[in-house]
């Protein structure tokens, strides 16, 4: 199971890198979304995907899934959500002010910074 997840995460990272190297700002932001998705899945996978009950004590199970990575992922999700929201608004503002979505055209010149 971990092997499968590793391949999947690798694909997510590959797509994220590809998208982040493109010219359109929105594709870059989609790339950051995929990147953080891959990072969160990796955090879950690296802690082990062994069988066990959900981490609720009421389940009275013999073994539970490791609760720490779940808490870490929850934290990381909220943080990347905040950053992505900020980034999207920034891209919107930049589109209004600079009038372009193309990273290459966002170079300043002496007269127009």
């Amino acid at each position, binding site marked *: 199971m971990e092997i499968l997840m590793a391949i999947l995460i690798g694909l997510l990272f590959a797509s994220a890198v590809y998208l*982040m190297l493109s010219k359109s*700002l929105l594709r*870059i932001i989609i790339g*950051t979304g995929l*990147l*953080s998705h*891959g*990072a*969160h899945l*990796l*955090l879950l*996978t*690296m*802690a*082990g995907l062994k069988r066990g009950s959900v981490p609720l004590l009421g389940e009275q199970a013999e073994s539970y899934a490791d609760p*720490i*990575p779940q808490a*870490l992922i929850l*934290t*990381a999700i909220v*943080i*990347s959500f*905040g*950053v992505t929201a*900020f*980034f999207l608004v*920034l*891209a919107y*503002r*930049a589109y209004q*002010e*600079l009038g372009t979505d193309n*990273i290459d055209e*966002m170079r*300043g010149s002496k007269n*127009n*910074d």
Partner: protein
Amino acid sequence: MINLLILPIIIPLLTAAILLFFAKKIAIQRWISTISLMATLVVSLFLIHKIDQNGIQTLDIGSWPAPFGITLVSDMLSALLVTTATLVALGCVLYSFYSIGKGRENYYYYAIVQFLLVGVNGAFTTGDIFNMFVFFEVMLMASYVLLVIGGTKIQLRESIKYILVNVTSSALFVITVGYLYSIVGTLNMAHISERIAEVNQPGILTVIAILFLIVFGLKGAIFPLFFWLPGSYYAPPAPIMALFGALLTKVGVYSILRTYTLFFYHDTGFTHQLLAVLSILTVILGSIAAIAFKDMKKIVIYNIIVAIGVITYGIAMMNADGLSGAVFYVIHDMIIKAVLFLLVGIIIKITGSVDYRKFTGLINHYPLLGWTFFIAVLALAGIPPLSGFVGKLLIARSGFATGDVFGAIVILLSSLLVLYSLMRVFLNGFWGDPSGSSKKPEVAVGKLLVPAIGLTIVAICFGIFSEGVYHYISQATEVLMNPDIYIQAVLGKS
């Protein structure tokens, strides 16, 4: 007072929360943020005294014993850095009163500066690797807002690049923590160190060490990873630039220092050698760029990169001289870079130009500004009685002691280029024909100079009384050299 070490984090946090309610009342905002920064400074000085008396201070949050809860650890190194960061923030806030402008002050500027300080102080104090990530994000989120506040075109453009780089490096940080957790199964830094010592750092941990170097190198701008810094730091106004230049990269350097002395000290052949090579390249490229530009902001920005290289070189040497030199230099550099950015901000306000060839004879109109700038440049280059000397001396000596003569000579030569890069500004801009510039009564130079001169005086005292300061820095180095002291303080067993 076992909660003393959390106060440098909690005071700015509460202040920021309170400041959110007074967005449009600028006078109240200024008073509250000044008072709270002074309180934080007093608390952190008291913390240094307490650590000097009683050794490392630890606090298990929520009374959960060490490896299970989040532990805050304040050793001498973190306490010194927290104090310096607070001091620099105080200087920058006082400078902002007369330079940042109503437009920005009305939009939560002071609250965000406090949040930035929360992140920086938290990252210096934490004893938990994931908690460090969270404090990094607090700091970075505040820095995104500070970078873009005001919303000019150049700020929008540079923020996009800055955020993209930092989102990537944060994802890499999460990935690295995931890898490390899968091997050692813990997040507490002292416990991680203990577990790594048990398995004696196999190959996979060296890979993780390099990943950490990439993550913190992106935050701290070492050689192949500093490409984002010159553009991003160029965009915001002077006090924000001073905050960034003094604090943000130094947190990355502190994290390299912490992880490389606490976690990955078993197999130093590869990792520390790599760090040394990258540091030398950072110093060389930074120096070349610093003398290539005619733009004062660019010159100071590339001087940040030179200083980062010098500090990481000291870390890479991993002996007592190198580490205490690095601690000395990082504190000196935080103060003096803030001073330089503040002074360059004043010069640009007076002359309206970033190019130092466009004006001459400034010293005839502004002698105090000129001489402060002169002293700051000498201190940056490391002229003996001033603050940059002892750190660079120790770092160069550690390079010679380990037999890396080339590296040590590069460090020494870089001083010359750093001195040249900024002395050009002094010679061209301040000396020469007095008619090349004029007095601008509308710029409140006197008030802007107060925080810059205050920080310069601190830097001078730091150099002159380095004997007394060394008493504290040797305690910081002792913990860095013997991770057992740190582990014992946190986990409370031998």
